[in-house]
Each structure stands twice: as structure tokens, then as C-alpha cells.
């Protein structure tokens, strides 16, 4: 049994606790013992995203210290995982523990797929539009992406493939950005919402009931647009779907 530390993004902890709970329960089901070190707060991405690395640094140091003792750190967010894996070395130069944390931090889907070799089963009879969050896709390579000419693969899709009744709808632009982009969502609100609305239209055209993804930040942005528009589509994190498929 693998001992795994759960790294819960700050906004998931506060605003989408069910996603973190589903992540924990999924990990337990597929062979991990889940720990939640309470000292964790935030990876620092919101500040780093604005270029304010000085403000991000103390948060990063806290995270590095929190997870120092663990061998595996799993996070239900591609962007936070990417922050730790791809940016901590530059943010905390010379910090060996930070580099080590980068190597042992996994996004939830890639951990289930690559390390636990999970093949989730169950039933979820809905038409689902799978949103490919950018950090997960292009920073963590959870999938091959539409831009490159490489062998096709998609770890998130693989995890959903064993669920009965789950129909993935076809999208015209399978991996265009939703427009959240962190502080971009506020600073360039007009373009951000235009991008989100176009994603929603794409999912509608495909006949999706639910927009799913592996990053709650994207879904939070899309959900905000959906609910303002009173659109019946709803959003779910992939962890929630897998959890609901097999309670």
C-alpha cells in the first residue's frame, strides 16, 4: 500500500471540498493510504502568475516543508502540480527539497493512471464533454494534444473509458483554452469570458449534459458563466465522476 500525501489546492479546499474528498476516496480505493498534512496552504501560483514571485516564495517554502517527509504527493489540479513540478526550481534556486518535491508531485489522473495503474469501473450514464485543461495537457502531458504530430494518448480519457453508460461527446476544438488563466480571468475579463462562452457552445453543440475536467479552476470559470446564463449544463471534476460511478 502506497503512502500518499494529498495536496489540495487552496481554492479547492475552501470552495470545492467534495472534489478533494472524491480524490482522497479514489486514491484509497485504488491502493493508497491517504494523508492530509494540515500545514499546507497554497502553492503560490496566483502570485507567480502575476509575476509577483517574491510574494509566492514564502508559500512555496511552506509547501516544500509540509511535504518533505512524503514519497508521493498527489494533487487534483494540473496547474498546481505544474507549478510545483515545473516552476519551483526557478522560484527557489538551489533548494534541493523543492527540486525533490517537483519530482514526487503528481496530478491525480496521472497518478491513478501511471502509478496505481487504476482501471476504474462503475456506471455513470450521462453525456459528458471532456475539457482538456491546458496545464495538465501541455505542461504535464496528460494527453498528446492537437498541436503535435505524436502518437495519440489521453490518460484522463483512459480513466473514464471503463465507466458504463458514460458517453464522451465530440468537440470541434478539443483542447482550446477555457480562458480562466489565473489572473487573466480578471485582468482580461472580456476575452476570458468570450473564450469560456465559446467552450460552452462547443460542449452544447456536442450534446453534453456535464462538462468534466481535471482542473477545478477551469470548471469554476465555466460554471460561473453557465449559472449566470441559467444554462442547464453542469460541471464536475473527473474525480467526482469516478467516485459517483462506483460509490
Amino acid at each position, binding site marked *: 500500500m502506497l503512502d500518499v500525501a494529498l495536496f*489540495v489546492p*487552496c481554492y*479547492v*479546499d*475552501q*470552495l*470545492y*471540498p467534495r472534489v*478533494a*474528498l472524491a480524490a*482522497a476516496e479514489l486514491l484509497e480505493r485504488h491502493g493508497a493510504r491517504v494523508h*492530509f498534512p*494540515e*500545514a499546507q*496552504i*497554497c502553492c503560490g501560483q496566483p*502570485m*507567480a*502568475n*502575476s*509575476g*509577483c*514571485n*517574491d*510574494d509566492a516564495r514564502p*508559500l512555496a517554502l511552506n509547501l516544500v516543508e509540509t511535504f518533505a517527509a512524503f514519497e508521493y504527493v498527489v494533487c487534483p489540479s494540473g496547474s498546481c502540480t505544474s507549478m510545483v513540478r515545473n*516552476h519551483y526550481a526557478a522560484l527557489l534556486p538551489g533548494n534541493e527539497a523543492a527540486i525533490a518535491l517537483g519530482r514526487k508531485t503528481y496530478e491525480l489522473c496521472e497518478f491513478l493512471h501511471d502509478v496505481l495503474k487504476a482501471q476504474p469501473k462503475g456506471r455513470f450514464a450521462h453525456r459528458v464533454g471532456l475539457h482538456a485543461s*491546458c496545464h495538465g495537457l*501541455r505542461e504535464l502531458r496528460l494527453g498528446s*494534444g492537437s*498541436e*503535435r*504530430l505524436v502518437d495519440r494518448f489521453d490518460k484522463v480519457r483512459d480513466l473514464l473509458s471503463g465507466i458504463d453508460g458514460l458517453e464522451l461527446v465530440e468537440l470541434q*476544438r478539443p*483542447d*482550446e*483554452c477555457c*480562458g*480562466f*488563466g*489565473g489572473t*487573466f*480571468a*480578471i*485582468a*482580461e*475579463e*472580456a*476575452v476570458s*469570458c*468570450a*473564450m*469560456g462562452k465559446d467552450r460552452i457552445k462547443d460542449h452544447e453543440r456536442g450534446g453534453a449534459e456535464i462538462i468534466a475536467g481535471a482542473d477545478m479552476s477551469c470548471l*469554476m*470559470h465555466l*460554471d*460561473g*458563466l453557465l*449559472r*449566470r446564463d441559467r444554462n442547464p449544463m453542469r460541471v464536475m471534476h473527473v474525480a467526482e465522476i469516478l467516485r459517483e460511478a462506483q460509490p
Partner: protein
Amino acid sequence: MSTTQALEHADKAAAFVADEERLQWHDKAVYFVRSKRDRAQSAVPEWEELRTLASQIKAHALSRLPEYLEQFEAAAQATGAVVHWARDAAEHNQIILELLNSRGVKRLVKSKSMLTEECHLNPFLEANGIEVVDTDLGERIVQFLKQPPSHIVMPAIHLKKEEIGDLFHDKLGTPAGLSDPIQLTYAARLHLREKFLAAQAGLTGVNFAIAETGGLVVCTNEGNADLGTSLPPLHIACMGVEKIIPRAKDLSVFLRLLARSATGQPITTYTSHYHGPRPGAELHIVIVDHGRSKILARPEYRNSLKCIRCAACMNTCPVYRRSGGHSYGVTVPGPIGAILAPHIDPVKHASLPFASSLCGSCTDVCPVRIDLHHQLLTWRGELARLGLVPLGKRAAAKVTGAILAHGWSYRFFGKLARWLVPRLPRWLLYNRFNPWGRQRELPPMPEKSFREIWKERRDGQP
């Protein structure tokens, strides 16, 4: 430090977005070019290898740039070309003016050169009594309109055919209401043919300069560079220092990538290799620095010098497509533009690295593997260090940073927000102080945070 300057892209973008019909049209038109690239790419199984080769060739060339430039100069001179060097835009413009004046040139035709746009050559020459005709169809259109190009490959992509029809009716005498691209192009053909025939000099850009042979390569579809250089007795070619490639054979790599990345064609109609002037004519080459040596000095940014100006990054960029080239306020817009511009003027262009969601699509389409979205993030950090990030953003980062720095403040403010937000009246939550809320609902506020639930679970409570 002006906060309004740094809002520029966002404001212009908001205006662009406000015209919903035009927004959708522009987005789809530009995305279409991205999909043409995808189709062209699928016919080249070794595509990713080609990108790696191209990136490596450029990296090597940059590592020996002075040596290759000297080799190029000697080889070019041996073919009968005259080579000039310009440190900056002013020198570049002056060299060209003196050249034209000394040959009594009053009528110049120009094919596409982003470098000359950067240097604002046209207004300079016009102020000095020289007629400059941009001969690329898209460039001629925006020249008539006194607008800058909005895209480096498709300068008039932001204009509808009806608008071009109205323009041509005014400038070329085409029938009112004519908007058929074929007929409009034919009218431009006739008009520009007269300009080619009357021109006393032709100016081109340079797609690639071959160090080994002293040759220049210019790629066009329209034939305008070739008409501009095969008729008048003087050919002026302007190139940035980074256009150097070591060998002629290296062209095979870049040419297989360039047109496919730019427009989805296997190659442009014309790929002209100039080694020296025509018999009885002159060829002058102007090699320009204009800030490139500064970029070379910065390891974090020097990959941007590999750019072959294909615009694939613009076509794939969801932000460019929904804000238009003019919203960037620089000669070269889009992701590559947002990286190059702050070197020129970090104050004026501080908003550009933030005109991105950092989705990374640009990096994956770039034929020379420039780490575009990483450089955008690096710029954000540098701009913050220079104090050029707008006050609002800095304040938000400081406040958020302070709250998140300690467990107790994080937990306190988190619980406060979750308790307060559902209890506040809508008008208090959704107003002009809440940009999130302009078009989006705030997330629903759960009663308990995950850590509270987990703690209860651990302590045996339901």
C-alpha cells in the same frame, strides 16, 4: 508608473470583443488557418523531428552569429552585393534614404518586411519625398487605409471583403458594391503592375540569409518580391542579424516548415535565392541589429531570436483570435510579439505578457520550438521586479500572499468568505468592483472546507 498604460491590451481587447459578430468572424477566420496548418502537418510524418532540427540549427547559428555574419558578408560581397550595417532603426532608415537619393529614386516598391515596419521606414521615406508602394496585397490594403498590419502573414485579416470593396472603389475605381475577392484581386493586380513597371527600386525583406554562400532567400506567394526585384535596377534587401543560417542545405528544413506552419501550403509559390544583383543592376543588403543583440544577451529570451515569422503562434492563440492584432499596439503582435516588444519598451508594452492565459498552444505549434509561453511568464516576473506590474495586480498579490502566508489567516478568511458571501445582497456582490462577476456567478460557498470535513472524518464524526 502609469496603471492605465498597462491596461492597454485589455481595453482594446474588450472593445474588439464587444462586437460579437465580428469577434466570431475573426476568430473563425484565423482558426481556419490553424486547421490548415494541422492538415499540412499530417502529411509530414517527420514533423516533430523537423522542428527539433530547425530549433537546433538556429541555436547553433546564434551561438556563432558574429562569425556567420562575417562569412555571409564576405560571400555576399563576392557575388557583387554591397553590404551595409545598421545599429538601429534610425541608421537603417538613413542608409536606405541615402541609397535612394544617390540614385535619384522617387518611386520605391516594397515586398513584405516586418523589419522595415519595426523601423517605421515608410513614413520616414514618404516624409523625404519618396513614394513607397507596399506590393503585398494585404499590405497595400492596410497602406491605403493608413493602418498597421494586424497579422504578419495576412495583414488585412481583420477586414471584411465588403470593406475592401469599398476601399478599392474609392482608391482604384472598382464598381461600388463589388466585394468578390477574385475581381478585387484582379483590380489590385492591374494597379500594382503599373507600380512595378514604374518603380526605380525594389525593397524586400529576407526570410533566410545563407552564411556559406552570401545568398538571400525570399518566400512569397504573390510574386511581388520577384516583380519588384527583376524590373528596377536597384534591389535593397533588409535583414535582422538573426536571419542567418549556416548552409544552403539548412534551407530544406526551414522551408519544409515555414509555409506549412504559416498557411498550410507545402511551400510558397516563389522561393527565390538571390546571389548578387542582376547583370547591370545593384543589390544592397542592410544588416540590422535594432535590439537583437540585447535579446541575445538574455539566456531566458534568446530562443525568441529563432523566430521565422510564420505566425503559427498567432493563429493558434485564443487571445489573439479574440482581440485582433491591433490590440497589441506593436508591429509584431500575438505571442511572439508579446515577448519581443517589452525589450524595446518595457513600460509601453508591459501589458502584453499578461495578454495571455498561458495555455501553451503557441509553444506546441512553433516550428522552431520557441518556449513562448514560458518566456511570457518570465517576462511577468521581470516586469514585476521592474515595478511595471499595475498597482491593482501588485496589491492583490500582496494581500492574497499575506492571507495565505499563515494557516490561521487562511482558515479565518476562507471561513469568513464562505459564511459572508451567501448572506450579502446581490448588489453588494455584483458591481463594478467585482470584475469576476460581470459575466460570471461567484462559486457556490460550501459550509465546510475540505480540511474541516477531513478532520471530522478522521476524528470519527459523520
